[in-house]
């Protein structure tokens, strides 16, 4: 069984002191320890942003690609090797902004991957511009009169799009967050965990103090049924003075692996390609 030290990376961490990303990093490593698979069987993919640095800080397979493009390599890797545990670490800008189209269609695809969105409601890496989830009215160095657009509501959006596992965590509660991540990994299909995460440098509104006064754990209410889509949508709509965290929606659905049949065969990467003649196919291109 792997231990915490097995996932320790030697890379120097380049986040601000007190950044919410640290709590997410702790939660990811705790979840991977509980998962029990060796680092060689785990892949983290990311795009660009502070969240996208996380795969460098975990010792396992890593693919750090283009801005907004954290999901395509995750999907490709999962199709080529369905035995791999694939996690995506992305931010509110990277996933809901630049990568929005990839998000929509990978929810449709329903591959068995887990997406962790570090949602600090700001573009941190590029020094504090409004992201898709920044609150209306929030003043930044670019939106000097305040953000004039309504924020995106990611959980409502992904429930409506048909994601089978939709959760929200909080970076300062790494024990609860690691449970959510493990549940997301063990869910067969596309899982999205939106993580509320203070940005101590550029978001002076949504602070640790601000969140700690508002969040509550939805799954502590035994009457809440995360399989009820309408109830989940209403729960995802809550905000302002009370913000639910936990598993908001969960339903099993047929995965891409099931529909395509790729999980009936050995992973593509294990197939013997020595005696395959692609000459006839290549002739079409010459």
């Amino acid at each position, binding site marked *: 069984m792997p231990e915490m030290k097995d996932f320790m990376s030697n890379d120097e961490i380049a986040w601000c002191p007190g*950044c919410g990303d*640290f709590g997410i990093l702790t939660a990811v490593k705790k979840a991977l320890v509980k998962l029990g698979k060796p680092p060689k069987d785990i892949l983290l993919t990311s795009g660009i942003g502070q969240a996208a640095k996380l795969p460098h800080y975990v010792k396992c397979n890593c693919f750090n690609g283009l801005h907004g493009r954290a999901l395509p390599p995750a999907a490709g890797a999962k199709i080529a090797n369905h035995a791999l545990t694939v996690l995506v670490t992305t931010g509110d800008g990277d996933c809901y902004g630049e990568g929005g189209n990839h998000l929509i269609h990978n929810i449709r695809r329903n591959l068995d991957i887990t997406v962790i969105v570090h949602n600090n409601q700001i573009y941190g890496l590029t020094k504090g511009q409004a992201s898709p989830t920044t609150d209306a009215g929030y003043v930044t160095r670019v939106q000097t009169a305040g953000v004039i657009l309504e924020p995106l509501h990611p959980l409502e959006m992904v429930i409506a799009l048909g994601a089978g596992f939709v959760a929200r965590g909080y970076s300062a509660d790494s024990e609860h967050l690691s449970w959510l991540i493990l549940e997301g990994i063990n869910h067969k299909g596309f899982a999205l965990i939106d993580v509320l995460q203070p940005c101590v440098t550029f978001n002076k509104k949504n602070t640790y103090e601000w969140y700690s006064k508002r969040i509550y754990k939805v799954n502590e209410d035994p009457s809440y049924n995360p399989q009820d889509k309408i109830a989940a949508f209403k729960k995802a709509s809550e905000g302002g003075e009370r913000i639910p965290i936990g598993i908001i929606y969960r339903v099993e659905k047929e995965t891409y692996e099931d529909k395509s049949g790729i999980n009936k065969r050995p992973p593509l990467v294990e197939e013997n390609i020595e005696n395959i003649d692609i000459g006839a196919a290549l002739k079409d291109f010459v």
Partner: protein
Amino acid sequence: MNKYRCLVCSYIYDPAIGDSTQGIAPGTAFENLPDTWLCPECGVDKSQFEKIS
């Protein structure tokens, strides 16, 4: 002596272990850490820790 947990990253300061990264010897109580001591994981100061045991 009590253990303390970082409220940001969940690092646990264990006085039995100390913190070799900042020259803190085993057996040093959290209360006796210098004010300049920072969480070795995420860099916050002592005010961001809570007592856990």
